[in-house]
């Protein structure tokens, strides 16, 4: 892509961030979008390690969480001392904290790559989480550390009480971080990160220390995670132990992977999608964690490039219009897939209801608004038929999809894809 197209892309991102609250003005939407902004920064920072440098970390929330606590304390100190520091610069405190802990823990963990790195990141994460439980003065124990963002110096009259003001603060930092992290991929350092990801051995024979590249990537990644952590502290006005633990580290891995670690935009898509599902699914079903797990397994097995990888696969066909050749096969496969999904959802919901809720609420439940009795065999049978029929149908339709792909690619003018 040329420079002009980058500018257009970033302009589009800026416009999208600006008008999103106009398009979705409900308070739930603005709260959700604020969280999405934080998670976009967090997931992109994680992908500097996973997608760009090939480092699988199980403890990235350490930098997000520690920076969040530092930011919460900084806000409390600033408010108590009436220091002349407005809220919008607090993310810089988070960045500094992320950088600081990134240097310390990075020096330990980036000596080795691969499995050793992954294990050390897991160990450091557990270490910090265990430490946080003990150190009450800094982490506030079970309650966490609360803060009040409106007590800081007003910024051009804005006190950041209403969520919409916080949204725009997050959107601003989100935009800045996206541009900066993208720019990083276009530097000599960014390219060497990719080289280290592709083939660390050879990197040492073109003059570079892989350890130094990993360390630098780690530190910068921790710094951006720190910005996200500080914005989380501002957004929730509360930091607690959950934000630092293994579950939060797992969540950012999930976002990057589901979105697609191989593309810069992947984690952005993943952060938006996963946050949206978290907020909406948890309202609809109590078994939402299970759906998350299934979705993750599905993506790992069938679309390892994530959503962005799937889109990139179709992009050349979309551009030359040959995507229409895929549509009949896709439509054909979509029918059994829908059956498979419906049957699966019914089975999960029936099982979950009968195992968890039936004892107190009785066997009556409703799925997709349809009332049914979990104690009767009929809903189970229907679900099984849908599920098994769907699975069979998908298997039967799959060769057609593969065939359609083969013909769309073989058609003249698309040789670029497979040459």
């Amino acid at each position, binding site marked *: 892509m040329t420079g002009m197209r980058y500018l257009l892309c970033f302009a589009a991102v800026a416009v999208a961030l600006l008008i999103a609250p106009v398009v979705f003005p409900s308070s739930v939407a603005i709260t959700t979008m604020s969280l999405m902004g934080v998670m976009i920064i967090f997931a992109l920072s994680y992908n500097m390690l996973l997608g760009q440098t090939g480092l699988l970390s199980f403890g990235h929330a350490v930098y997000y969480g520690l920076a969040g606590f530092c930011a919460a304390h900084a806000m409390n100190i600033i408010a108590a001392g009436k220091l002349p520091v407005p809220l919008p610069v607090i993310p810089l405190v988070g960045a500094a904290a992320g950088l600081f802990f990134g240097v310390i823990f990075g020096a330990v963990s980036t000596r080795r790559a691969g499995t050793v790195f992954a294990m050390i990141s897991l160990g450091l994460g557990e270490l910090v989480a265990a430490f946080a439980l003990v150190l009450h003065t800094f982490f506030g124990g079970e309650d966490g550390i609360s803060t009040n963002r409106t007590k800081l110096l007003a910024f051009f009259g804005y006190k950041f009480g209403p969520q919409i003001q916080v949204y725009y603060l997050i959107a601003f930092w989100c935009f800045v971080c996206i541009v900066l992290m993208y720019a990083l991929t276009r530097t000599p350092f960014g390219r060497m990160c*990719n080289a280290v990801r*592709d083939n660390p051995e050879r990197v040492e024979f073109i*003059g*570079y220390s892989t350890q130094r590249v990993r360390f630098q990537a780690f530190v910068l990644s921790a710094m951006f995670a720190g910005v996200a952590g500080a914005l989380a502290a501002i957004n929730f006005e509360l930091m607690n132990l959950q934000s630092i633990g293994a579950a939060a580290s797992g969540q950012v891995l999930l976002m990057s992977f589901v979105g697609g670690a191989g593309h810069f935009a992947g984690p952005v898509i993943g952060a938006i999608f996963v946050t949206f599902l978290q907020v909406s699914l948890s309202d609809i079903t109590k078994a939402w964690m299970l759906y998350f797990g299934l979705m993750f397994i599905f993506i790992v097995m069938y679309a390892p490039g994530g959503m962005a990888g799937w889109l990139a696969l179709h992009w050349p066909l979309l551009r030359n219009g040959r995507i229409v050749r895929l549509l009949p096969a896709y439509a054909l496969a979509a029918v059994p897939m829908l059956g498979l999904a419906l049957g699966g959802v019914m089975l999960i919901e029936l099982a979950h209801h009968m195992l968890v809720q039936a004892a107190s609420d009785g066997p009556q439940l409703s799925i997709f608004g349809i009332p049914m009795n979990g104690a009767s065999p009929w809903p189970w049978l229907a679900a099984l038929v849908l599920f098994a029929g769907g699975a069979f149908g998908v298997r039967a339709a799959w060769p057609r999809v593969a065939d359609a792909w083969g013909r769309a690619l073989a058609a003249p003018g698309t040789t670029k894809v497979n040459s």
Partner: protein
Amino acid sequence: MNPAIALRDVRKSFGPTEIIRGLNLTVNRGERHAVIGPNGAGKSTMFHLISGRLQASSGVIELKGEDITGLRPYEINRRGLSRSFQITNIFPKLSVYENLRCAVLWSLGYRYAFWRFVDRLKDANERAEEVLEMIGLTARRDTPAGVLAYADQRALEIGVTIAGGADVIMLDEPTAGMSHAETEQAVALIRKVSEGRTLIMVEHDMGVVFGLADRISVLVYGQIIASDTPQAIRANPAVREAYLGEEAPA
């Protein structure tokens, strides 16, 4: 002037097995030096020792008069030695051009810079284009290196090796697995890129060896048994017995 490379009594053991057993070798500056020897003689191990991929158990390795024993590969590379690999060892997801540009960055002093755009580094891009043309992959510029044809990957392997401008080049079986026509092209490329530099090459194709090398060393069971001009090596009875045997070109 100091020799480009000097090995003195270098030994390397893997557990109880000694693979390199008191190896002495001198490669003069500016010469094309081929190392030949039967399979398992330790040619690749010797390359790994010189380039820092493996550490010698004992002995001294000097690069242009400087002791490089025990240094890391990147430290040796920064001192002006660059090597290729027997099994292609490139950056598979990066484009051909990106492979070459990464290979020139350190030598041009860009180090770990994260405050300048790589597309705007005029000298790095010019150098990468130059090497791209030299190895004949201009048409494949934006192809991911991992999907190149085998011979093209081998050419890129050489390109990545020489792009940084090192003055001592080591090539490990650069023509292995190539067809006759591809080998001819590769030899022409090697001749071109080693112009004005020191070249050390492991090679099995005797046509290539005797056509390119100014001097030849014969490595047998971890020791250099002879190091001389091609004519002298051809006539050396010990070499004929130990290695060339009936394969000796007429």
